């Protein structure tokens, strides 16, 4: 018997979690940013459910999206036959909230977190499947596979339920919801190796053009490309093997102030 590879172990665990979540929650949705991790989620869901994603996927459209990402959204929605819901915080945009006039933490909160809250109020989902990984940020490192949020979207990271032997806290009280996080144990390079192994479609912006590429994708005004000549998956993986800078270093909202990410997450950011 050949031994299982590291990626097999991760894939099997993620599929297991998808199925536990689909069983445990009646009304479930999956935020989808079209980013690489998000597309791995779509792929794993298709594996878990044998060729379909049996719940809606939600794109929180900040209206600051890269055009290439919107093109990808259209293509992938048809390709995977997704039930796509697009949500914009029209109210905040109406008030003029935007990167032109506001700081990134405020804009991210309004156009992402509040938009998500609006969608939750509308669709009453009791669980959201997210693509966060422990290696992205110290606060994410302490997450559970099944992580409860109260009605205000707050995460009580000081008193998290135990999680062991494949048993999770799968209940949410009225108004609460559970974040289900199948990629928690994956690292950035695991994601890339898996994309490579499985031929998972991702937006072209991850690959270098004119000496620059995006390592992490967010809103246009606050997402900076890195200097890179990595124009293939192989080259990206080779680059990651030697880098010592963090993946989200190009995401301004994380660094606006000390502990910005922790503050964003405590308030409901994914």
């Amino acid at each position, binding site marked *: *018997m*050949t*031994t*299982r*590879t*590291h*990626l*097999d172990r991760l894939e*099997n*665990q993620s*599929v*297991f979690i998808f*199925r536990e979540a*689909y*069983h445990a929650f009646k009304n479930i949705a999956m935020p989808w940013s079209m980013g690489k991790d998000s597309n791995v989620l779509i792929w794993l869901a298709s*594996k*878990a*459910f*044998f*060729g*379909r994603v*049996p719940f809606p996927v939600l794109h929180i459209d900040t209206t600051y999206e890269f055009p290439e990402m919107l093109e990808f959204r259209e293509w992938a929605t048809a390709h995977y036959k997704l039930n796509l819901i697009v949500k914009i915080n029209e109210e905040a945009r109406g008030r003029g909230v935007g990167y032109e006039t506001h700081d990134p933490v405020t804009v991210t909160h309004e156009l992402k977190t509040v938009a998500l809250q609006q969608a939750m109020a509308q669709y009453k989902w009791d669980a959201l499947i997210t693509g966060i990984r*422990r*290696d*992205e*940020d*110290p*606060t994410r*490192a*302490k997450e559970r596979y099944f992580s409860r949020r109260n009605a205000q979207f707050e995460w009580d*990271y*000081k008193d*998290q*339920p*135990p*999680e*062991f*032997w*494949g*048993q999770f*806290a*799968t*209940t949410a009280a009225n108004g609460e919801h559970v974040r289900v996080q199948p990629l928690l*144990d994956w*690292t*950035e*390079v695991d994601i890339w*190796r898996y994309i*490579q*192994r499985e*031929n998972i479609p991702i937006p072209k912006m991850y690959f270098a053009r004119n000496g620059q590429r995006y390592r992490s994708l967010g809103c246009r005004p606050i997402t900076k490309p890195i200097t890179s000549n990595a124009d293939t998956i192989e080259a990206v993986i080779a680059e990651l*093997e030697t880098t*010592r*800078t*963090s*993946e*989200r270093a190009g995401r301004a909202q994380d*660094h606006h102030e*000390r502990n910005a990410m*922790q503050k964003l997450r405590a308030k409901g950011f994914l």
Partner: protein
Amino acid sequence: MHSISSVKHPASSGEATLRVVFVGHVDHGKSTLIGRILSDTNSLPEGKLEQVQRACAAENMEFEFAFLLDALLEEQEQNITIDTTQIPFKTAKRNYMIIDAPGHKEFLKNMITGASSADAAVLVIAANEGVQEQSKRHAYLLSLLGVRQFCVVVNKMDLADYSEARFLEIEKKYRVFLKTLNLETDVFIPASARFGENITARSTKMKWHHGPTLAEALDAMTPMAPPTDLPLRFCVQDVYKFDDRRIIAGRIETGMLQVGDELVFSPANKTSIVQSIEHWPVIPSAVEGSRGASFKISHRDPSTPIGMTGVAGGSIGITLHEQIFVERGYVASHSKDAPIETNRFHADLFWIARQPARLSHLYTVRLATQEVKCQIVSLDEVMDSSSLERNPTKADQLARNEVGRLTIQTRAPIVLDNHDRLPPLGRFVLVDDGMICGGGIVYDGVYTDRGAIKSKNIFWSEGKITAQARSAQHGHRGAVVWLTGLSGSGKSTIAQALERELFIRAMHPYVLDGDNIRHGLNSNLGFAPEDRVENIRRVSEVAKLMADAGNVVITAFISPYRADRQRARSIAMEGNAEFIEVFVDAPLEVCEERDPKNLYKKARAGEIREFTGIDAPYELPVDPEIVVQTNQQSVDESVASILERLLPRLK
């Protein structure tokens, strides 16, 4: 604050990551040890070390390696690790994921969360303080959690003058203790995380140590191999019917299965043959390599065709030849080496909830994907988890952080294994009000006792017994399952098979048919049209009462008239019982050929008048909840399709 944990230095592709948990008494230096490893293996983000050093200098604090780890604000304030953190690092040999489990007693549940997924453990003991309460408790919990590969770091040797005598003293004492747990390791490492002695580099201050450094000891460990050599346990998570396939999805906990294998599903004890293992993307039937790496199935027996085998650890989906009823919680095995099926078992239980575990309180036991209501029926011993002394107890509860040896009784059969034989099916959690309150391991289960299950569950309640209370006690709602169809269509056979299926699920079914009604309650009725109407009316009323009492009443009467069936439905609804009409459909020719009671022959011969189908009409059901076609489906298949519709409505 930037990510301290976002560094990826992947080792060669495919080499499995080793998940290693660091445990030990509070303040024995786990965080320092981890900070030191990250630093000495160049696993920190660029500039991180310098940044923290600068920050310390600015605050006039002495730099500590632990600061690298204590990422959340609260931890810096309290100076203790409050939750499990996972941090990658890398040696020349492979990738590691460090699980930093909190040492403080308060946060035991977090330590368990972290440690349960580990391949290996590093137990940290401070040389100056020696073996402390948590040093013991953690080792014991590791043994309960099934982590058996570990090394012991005697840290802070700088505070013990790098004394070999002190090191040997601690080693000796701890070895004695480990032996009582049946845990064993040869690897004790004298170290100083603060000064980097014997972490990645060999210490010059402790030349008397000839064993490995910590990095060498870790490199010598191996990731936990999925137990393919144990008997098969395939635990069903769900059954998907997204298209014309009926896919049984689940995880193979141990062993392996192949297309063509005959599987036994417990607790129903039904068997079927694996027809296919389903894959997405669909695996081309062509030889491996035609589509390159993207469709590679990397864990398979090379002697079998691609995609036809599932092995331990695999989250798979299968289809079966026979459409037997299968649902979440079922465990598939081969008929040889089947698991134990019982409603009573012995366990060691560790308790982590604030509210103590109480005798007779109704908990839910979750074991693999099974979920069954249960009670602790006896508490025999309570273990002090630091001294590990077992004390016989007369207590009727188990407090937080205690471990008890006890007996659990479940309300429906549960499928399990002894933990020492087959760990994944030998461990369970108890859930109260949606919260995981404790975890346990099963011991002393008897494998030969299969099938001999006697239920003696007793539950008490006070005041008026409401319908909810009844269904809570029974574990299901009352209902009337009304089978209708021609004589010989198979109603009685299906009724009895269905009754048996419900009964083995610890439910409360009862079949009403001509035999037990005509001979007693309706013995004054004949076969005149008005008597037939009255017969069905009385059956309807009896069914309603029995359903109200919480039973699942299965009626098996031809009941040829729509009006009669409609009235049966109305009567049941008055009693707030579910009414499920099942049309047991078979063509008249088939029923006449079966003719189990020779009634068709008599009717054809004119000995019986007004026989349904011959000289009396059968009014087809207009909108029955369920139709089974007994000329096309076997009894098992008919019952399976009824169960599929019925069980969700009884919850």
